[in-house]
């Protein structure tokens, strides 16, 4: 795939003790694709995400973002890349001392020299786009519910209109309705803003709803890769087992 947004090849990640969580992890994400990384606990989903967003250096292999190699990248090139993606952390990681609107405006103030009133207007637009009520902008993160907090975190991740959005367990800890709303939002944003999305998720309902493709981590590599219906037919017992639980529930629902 020539125009892949993310291209991970033979990635190796080890810890100080010599234990390696990835050995030969390879996958690609195409533009405007929603790809979910799944796998049991301890299979290194978060490690993988941290390496792709340049918070951790891999011990081998290669990661390319927008065609640019991350291993050995210079600080300036890294900063340029950081402006092209947004990250929503699992707990939101909104700055507690700032209001939601100020949180969204922070990257804008830091990386553009637009007039203050336009920045304020852009922040307001982003807050509305993620489906938060207008008065949410003046609230502090601690005054928001879990679902609103995640939406606010998405708004901040979208502040600079990135081409690529990373989501760490977007629906974890949300009630099914809020989770569904957030999933709808992700698809809507992908369609309207042309985003590419890489997400980590455990929520099978959510995976069925949003993921174009799933990358299944296990045994230090990618065990299986493809659309979910295809993975449910996988020859690998771990993968089949993971997705068959859902089939069981769906069958119960339809009965």
């Amino acid at each position, binding site marked *: 795939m020539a125009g892949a947004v993310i291209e991970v090849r033979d990635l190796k990640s080890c810890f100080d003790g010599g234990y390696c969580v990835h050995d030969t992890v390879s996958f690609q994400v195409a533009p405007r694709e929603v790809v979910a990384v799944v796998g049991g606990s301890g299979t290194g989903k978060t490690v993988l995400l941290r390496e792709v967003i340049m918070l951790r250096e891999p011990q081998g292999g290669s990661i390319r973002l927008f065609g640019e190699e991350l291993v050995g990248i210079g600080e300036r090139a890294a900063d340029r890349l950081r402006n092209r993606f947004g990250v929503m952390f699992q707990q939101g990681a909104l700055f507690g001392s700032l209001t939601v609107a100020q949180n969204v405006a922070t990257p*804008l103030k830091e990386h553009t020299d637009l007039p203050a009133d336009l920045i304020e207007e852009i922040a307001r637009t982003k807050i509305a786009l993620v489906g938060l009520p*207008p008065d949410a902008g003046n609230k502090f993160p*601690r005054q928001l519910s879990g679902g609103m907090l995640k939406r606010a975190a998405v708004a901040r991740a979208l502040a600079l*209109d990135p081409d690529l959005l990373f989501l760490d367990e977007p629906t974890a800890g949300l009630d099914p309705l809020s989770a569904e709303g957030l999933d709808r939002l992700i698809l809507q944003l992908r369609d309207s803003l042309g985003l590419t999305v890489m997400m980590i998720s455990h929520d099978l309902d959510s995976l069925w709803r949003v993921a174009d493709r799933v990358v299944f981590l296990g045994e230090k590599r990618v065990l299986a890769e493809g659309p979910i219906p295809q993975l449910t037919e996988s020859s690998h017992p771990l993968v089949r087992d993971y997705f068959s639980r859902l089939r069981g529930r769906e069958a119960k629902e339809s009965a």
Partner: protein
Amino acid sequence: MSPAAITTRPDGSFALAGEWTIHCIKAVTGGVAALPKGREALAIDASAIEAIDTAGALLLVQLSRHCARQGVALSLSGLAPHQQALVDLVAQVPEPEPEPPQPAQGLLERLGRRTMGHVEQGIELLAFLGEAVVALLRTWLRPRRIRWRILWGVVQAAGVNAIPIVALLSFLIGIVIAYQGGVQLKSYGANIFVVDLVALTMLRELGPMMTAIIVAGRTGSAYTAEIGTMMVTEEVDAMRTMGISPMELLVLPKMFGLVIALPLLTMLADIAGILGGMVMAFLLLGVDFNDFIARMPVNVTATSFLVGIGKAPFFAAIVALVGCFQGFRVSGGAESVGQQTTISVVQAIFLVIVANAGFSILFSTVGI
């Protein structure tokens, strides 16, 4: 990246070009608002726009709102379907409602609010003291519930580990007192009085107070940060639901431990301070160590020592109480922990000095 641009065409219409994206729209932010001025109709061809994002779309939406407000007929053409879709999406975001003006607070109102805030906090601190005393009585009734291991941990952390810094600082203070006082005494030939000066100031005042201030900065702040972080991570709530009283587990051992550790540290400060004074007295005034020690009992009595050491447990209770109290007042996140820690240290030092003044008045009325 080609920056966004607006060009005028010979027929009076305008053409938009370049990338209307967040990093490229700087040049046109002012121009967009000026376009509709003094016109009745505005024709814009956007077909040369290479790329557009929400920021660029917002500018176009603002333009059409300006036009609508000024009665200018706008015809915007040439956007690709997906660009038009984005502009439509941004246009759905309603305009901000004008915020109701905040009534300005007068000087008097601000003063009143701040004062009431302090009064309320004072009352809360007293309530906290009351709770601590109740918890204390409860544990006295059941001595087996005293958490000895935590208690000794506190004594270790707040007392033993503070020995070097307290000893060093007191030694230096002793030197300073002897030096400053010695220069004056020397001119009267009253060199030997440096012994009374150093010993009395260290034992009665500076020993206990300096130690309490060091401990407030070192340990009181740690208590606030520790309990505050536990508040943020809901550990305190978890304790309550398990039926463990945070008062018993967090506050009492800290208070007890400090009440044990601070008098001992004060004693150390007394000794180190007098040692510092002795060194300086010898170097500056020629009072040798034997003379110094022989002179001490003349004016310095056991009362002087006991008066100083007797204040230490009270200072310890103040530091521990304020540290824990401010920790429990943490709400929200990291910023609040920092804020309360600052308040804790300032308040503890403030109260220690006030209490010291109170003791001075008390002792002078009873004549010791």
